[in-house]
Every structure is written in structure tokens, then in C-alpha cells.
């Protein structure tokens, strides 16, 4: 017994030391002193140069589905770009997993910047992770590019922080305006998940927009992520009988709310937040989803050549349709490559300046520019649930 324990202990210690050594040894030289990348960067735009980009996503744990979709989108874009830019630019991506944990996101960003010498970082997946890891990248003067961070205040972190994910303050009002305006609706009620930062942020935007549009606020009810019964809240809403019901939640609870609302006979128009951008909505809500209106940056049904080519390539590679997360990841790498080519070298500051100049980028998730605060200016597609899928809303 004694022997086993001891050998186990020493083996454990030994391996951890070994691994520690090897990872330390692979550190490129000069990382600690200079924040600039030491990637060979020929000034002539003729020669090929390599740019290493970090991808920080949730690849394990309960929210891994989001990270996986983002990784797929990036991998597809990587293949296409390295083929198209042969002789000019070669992009490498190094992925790091956060498991949805804030500390892990900070560690991952630190590692990519200081040990792997990436020129920029795409990710992290969650807004909470971005709020913790963004300042780290900003301090190290490395561009960090959010592709799924929709809460307010992300761009306020600093001037190295970018995102192509439309904040709810753009997407939600677009959906509400299109669905509500000129239809004569006068009253609205709200239901949202109170223990989820994403849902609360969405609700705040909905409320502000409703006020601006002159809708009368009949009442607000809340539930928690993880709840399965919403009858009490929805019975109250049924009595209020609003013209429009606004739901801000993640897809799982949101779909159940929609289903229950229709079961209880609520006939209001239902407008959902960004959380509804998921095909699972139809699995959970079934026919009750009919008529649900959502704003999304990306719809695979959109009749646009670029979008359809992307959908086809994605289906050929992975056998499934891309979602919004894959689309925004795909776009982000195209933006990176365009800006890197513009900068002509893999340099963090040059890349930042190029990114800030981005204008009218045509991606699969719509047109994109940045304003002076690096906030994305883009357009959201408003979609309506019809026959088990989201189709552009008319």
C-alpha cells in the first residue's frame, strides 16, 4: 500500500513537472519583454506571411454546443481563406477551451498572447468571459474579436476590443419595429429569465424600445433558467391580454414559454430575443412556434448567393446547416484576413488599426461596419417561424 501510494505520488509529480517543462521550453523567445509579435513579417506585400490567430471557445461543459459551432465556422473559413490567399497570407488558428469558466478564459487569453504569440484572438464565447478576458487582451495591446457577445458595454472595455455580433440594442429593436409598427398594436407584456445575464440585457432593451415606440407596458413577469413550469406567470399575462408578448430567454426555456403561452390561449404576437436563434425551438415548441418573430444576424434561408454558398459548403463538410454562431465565426475570420492583408504584416497594432477602419464588409451575416466606438453597425434579418423553420418576415 505504502509503495503504491508513493510511486503514484512521485509519478504524478514527475509527469506534471515534465509537462510543465516541455510547455515552458516551447515558449518562443522574447515574449515577456515585447508585446509585439515576433512572427516573421516581411514588409513587402509580395511575400507570403503567416499569422497565428487564437480561438477561445467553450469546447467542453454544458454550453459546448455554441463553441463547437463557432469552431466549425472558423475551420471552414480557414480552409477557404488559405486556399484563396495562397502566396500572400497563411492563417493558423490555435484553439483554447474555456469550459465556460471565467478564470479559464483569462488563462487562455493570457496563454495565447504571451506564449503562443498570436496576432489576434477570436472569442471568447460568452459575454461574461469577454468582460473578464477582454481587459487582459486590451492591456496587452492585442486585438480581441467577439463573435457571440451581445450584451452592452463590451466595446467599452478598450480600443482593442471588437465584435461582429450585433448587440441586442440593434437586433431586438429591429425585430420589434418590423413586427409591431404600422399594425396598430398598443399594449405589450414582458416575460424574461431573471437569472441569466443575456436574457436580462435583452429584456432591458425590449423595455426601452417599447417605451420609445409608445407601447403601453401592461406588466413584467420573470422566471429562472432551469424552470419547466410557467403557468403562473403566463396565466397572469393572459389576464393582461397584451397585443404583443415579448420574450427574452435562452432557447430552451423560451421555447417552453411560447408553447405554454399558446396552450393557455394567449393570442398575442410573440417577439423573441436573440436567444431564439436555434433550430431546437421547433423541436421543443412544435407547432406552437408558428408566428414567432425573431431578429437574427443570419438566416440560412436568406436568398443571397454568398449565404447559399456558405450553407452549401458547410453542409458538405459537416452534414448539418450552419447556425448564427457558425456564420459569425466564419465572417470573423474573413474580416481578420482582409484586415491582415490590408496591414501587410502580422502585427497587432497594425491589425487593430485596420480592423477599426472596416467598412461595408459583406459577410454571410450581413453587411458590417464599425462606428468610432468600434460598435458594429449591421443589419439584422427579421424572421418568422413558419412550417418548422425560420423564414424572412414580410
Amino acid at each position: 500500500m505504502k509503495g503504491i501510494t508513493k510511486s503514484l505520488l512521485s509519478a504524478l509529480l514527475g509527469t506534471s513537472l515534465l509537462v510543465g517543462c516541455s510547455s515552458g521550453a516551447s515558449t518562443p523567445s522574447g515574449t515577456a519583454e515585447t508585446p509585439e509579435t515576433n512572427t516573421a513579417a516581411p514588409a513587402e506585400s509580395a511575400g507570403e506571411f503567416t499569422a497565428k490567430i487564437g480561438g477561445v471557445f467553450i469546447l467542453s461543459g454544458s454550453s459546448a454546443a455554441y463553441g463547437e459551432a463557432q469552431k466549425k465556422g472558423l475551420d471552414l473559413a480557414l480552409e477557404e481563406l488559405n486556399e484563396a490567399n495562397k502566396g500572400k497570407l497563411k492563417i493558423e488558428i490555435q484553439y483554447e477551451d474555456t469550459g465556460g469558466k471565467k478564470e479559464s478564459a483569462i488563462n487562455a487569453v493570457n496563454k495565447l498572447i504571451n506564449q503562443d504569440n498570436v496576432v489576434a484572438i477570436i472569442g471568447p464565447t460568452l459575454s461574461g468571459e469577454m468582460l473578464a478576458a477582454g481587459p487582459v487582451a486590451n492591456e496587452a495591446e492585442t486585438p480581441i474579436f467577439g463573435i457571440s457577445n451581445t450584451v452592452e458595454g463590451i466595446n467599452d472595455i478598450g480600443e482593442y476590443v471588437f465584435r461582429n455580433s450585433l448587440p441586442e440594442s440593434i437586433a431586438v429593436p429591429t425585430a420589434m419595429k418590423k413586427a409591431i409598427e404600422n399594425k396598430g398594436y398598443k399594449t405589450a407584456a414582458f416575460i424574461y429569465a431573471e437569472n441569466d445575464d443575456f436574457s436580462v440585457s435583452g429584456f432591458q432593451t425590449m423595455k426601452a424600445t417599447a417605451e420609445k415606440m409608445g407601447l403601453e407596458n401592461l406588466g413584467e413577469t420573470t422566471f429562472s433558467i432551469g424552470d419547466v413550469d410557467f403557468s403562473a406567470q403566463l396565466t397572469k399575462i393572459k389576464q393582461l391580454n397584451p397585443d404583443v408578448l415579448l420574450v427574452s430567454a435562452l432557447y430552451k426555456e423560451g421555447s417552453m414559454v411560447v408553447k405554454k403561452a399558446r396552450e393557455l390561449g394567449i393570442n398575442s404576437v410573440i417577439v423573441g430575443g436573440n436567444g431564439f436563434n436555434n433550430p431546437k425551438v421547433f423541436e421543443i415548441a412544435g407547432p406552437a412556434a408558428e408566428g414567432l418573430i425573431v431578429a437574427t444576424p443570419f438566416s440560412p434561408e436568406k436568398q443571397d448567393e454568398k449565404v447559399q454558398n456558405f450553407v452549401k459548403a458547410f453542409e458538405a463538410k459537416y452534414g448539418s446547416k450552419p447556425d448564427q454562431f457558425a456564420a459569425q465565426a466564419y465572417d470573423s475570420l474573413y474580416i481578420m484576413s482582409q484586415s491582415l492583408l490590408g496591414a501587410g504584416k502580422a502585427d497587432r497594432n497594425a491589425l487593430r488599426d485596420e480592423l477599426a477602419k472596416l467598412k461595408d464588409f459583406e459577410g454571410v451575416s450581413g453587411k458590417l461596419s464599425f462606428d468610432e466606438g468600434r460598435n458594429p453597425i449591421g443589419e439584422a434579418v427579421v424572421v418568422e417561424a413558419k412550417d418548422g423553420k425560420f423564414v424572412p418576415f414580410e
Partner: protein
Amino acid sequence: MEWLNPYNIQVVTFIILNCILAISIFITLATGQLSLGHAGFMSIGAYTTSILSKNADLPMFVAIIAGALMAGLIALLIGAPTLKLHGLYLAIATLGFGEVVRVILLNMEITNGALGITGLKSLGTYIYDGMKAVGITSQSLGLSVPVIKSLSTLVFLFLLFLVVLFLTLRLNSSRLGRAFEAIRADETAARAMGIQVNYYKMLAFIIGSVLAGLCGGLFAHITTAITPTDFNYHKVVEILSFAVIGGTEVVWGALFGAVALTALPEVLRGLAEYKMIFYGAIMVLVMAVRPRGLIGSDTLQKLFRRGSKKQNEQPKGVE
């Protein structure tokens, strides 16, 4: 100097923060109380500190101390009714407490609900500003600003950790520590020996909570953003597993657990998706081979009695 980059420093910083957390759970466990409220106390410390330093503009160190004391105060209130419970019942009561705290934080205006408090000043920036005020800049030290900031955070945390560790070791060999040990061994016997069991249990509970609150305040200013989900059930399990994997008999056990469990995910980063499989497998293996934790009181005795050969190996793992 290559190893001196913010990534390595950051990892070690989290290791030391978790070491203090391990001490906090160790002290509570030292009297045989299985408390699952540590994440709750941590969140109280974190939120108190953040609100004081962000909204009330108090100096960061004052805010961190206030956060720790606040956690202690709440522990005093919670401890009175719950510490009469034993074993699993106490565990469930304290677990409930942690959840209640989380729900309160979710619903209060000042804590900003689920969105949490963001944009806090980082500990490194704060210390560096102080250093600049006395004339020490990045040029005079010959290091880049991010390195200095992370390094000063690390040095500060390490000094704090040494103080806490020193006090804990003193505590263990004092009258108090022996009383704790007696209570853990057998509460009834301890009472028969004239030890005021309730008083000592309460004391251990409060010390543990104050330390957890301290860690909360530090955590808030290291990560610069906190949300109630940072202190959910997973955090409780994480803290508890430091002590369970490492061992609950001596403080070195809990510390070793904290070091190993914080470093492993980073060391295993290269394995990417398979990381968690190895992580889990190592935990199962440890529990199967050493059900009372990797380092018990017998381990240390054996190691120190043997020659210097083994001694050289041991402190490395422990520190």
C-alpha cells in the same frame, strides 16, 4: 526570463488564490463541519468589495478587508442556528444558504442582477498606480507593464498567503487547534473534557468564512468582473474537492489539493477536448487509492522520518 510572462504568472496567481480558499475550507473542516456555504461567503465578500470600491470609491485594500469582515458577520448570523446541525444536515443547510445568497444577488438592484458588476479596477493596476506614485515605473524595473501588473498581483497575493498560512500553522499548534482536533475526533468526548464545543465550532466557521470572503474580494479584483453564476454550486464542489483530494487532516493536504486541481487543467491544456477525461480519471484514481486524501498526517510523518532524499521531493509538491 522567458517563463516570466503574464500567462504563467496568472496561473500561479489563481493557484495561490485557491490555496487561500483551501485553507478556508480546511479550517471549517478541522472541527468536522462539512460546510457547503463557502461560495456564498465568497460571493458576499466579492460583492461587498466591488460595491465599496466601485460605487463608494473606497481604497481597494480597505474594500477587500471590509468584504472579508462582512462575510464574517453574516457567518455569525448564519452560524448560530445552523451549527447545531451535524454532518449531512449541516451540509444541506449551508448549501441552501449559498443558494439563497445567490438568488438575493440576482434580484438586488445594487448588484446589477444577473449582469453582475463589471469593469472593476484590477488589483495589478491598483498596485502599479501606487508604485508609480512612489516613482517606480516599468522603465526603472526593465519589465513591460503587463508583466509588472501581473507580477505585483502575484507578489501581493503570495505575501498574503504566507501570512494566512503562518497564522493557520500557529493556530493548529495552539490551544485552539488542539480543541478543533479534539472536536473533530469525537464531539462528545471533547465536551466531556470540558471543551466548549459550540464556541469553537462557531469560531472555526467564522474564520473559514472570513477567509472565503477575503478570497471573494480578491477574485473580484483579479477577474475584474463578477456575476452571481461565478459562485454557484460548481464553485462549492471545486473548493471542497481541494480538501477532499488533497486531504483534510493537515493543512498541507488541502494546499496540495488546491495546487494540483488548479494547475492540472492548465497543464493538460494541450490535450484539448480530452482534458476533462484525464482530469476526471486522475480524481477517480486518487479517491480509489487514497480515500482520505493524498496527504494525511501519516504521510508527512513518514516523509520527515525518512532520509533527506524524500524530503527534497516533498516540499516541492506542497508549496
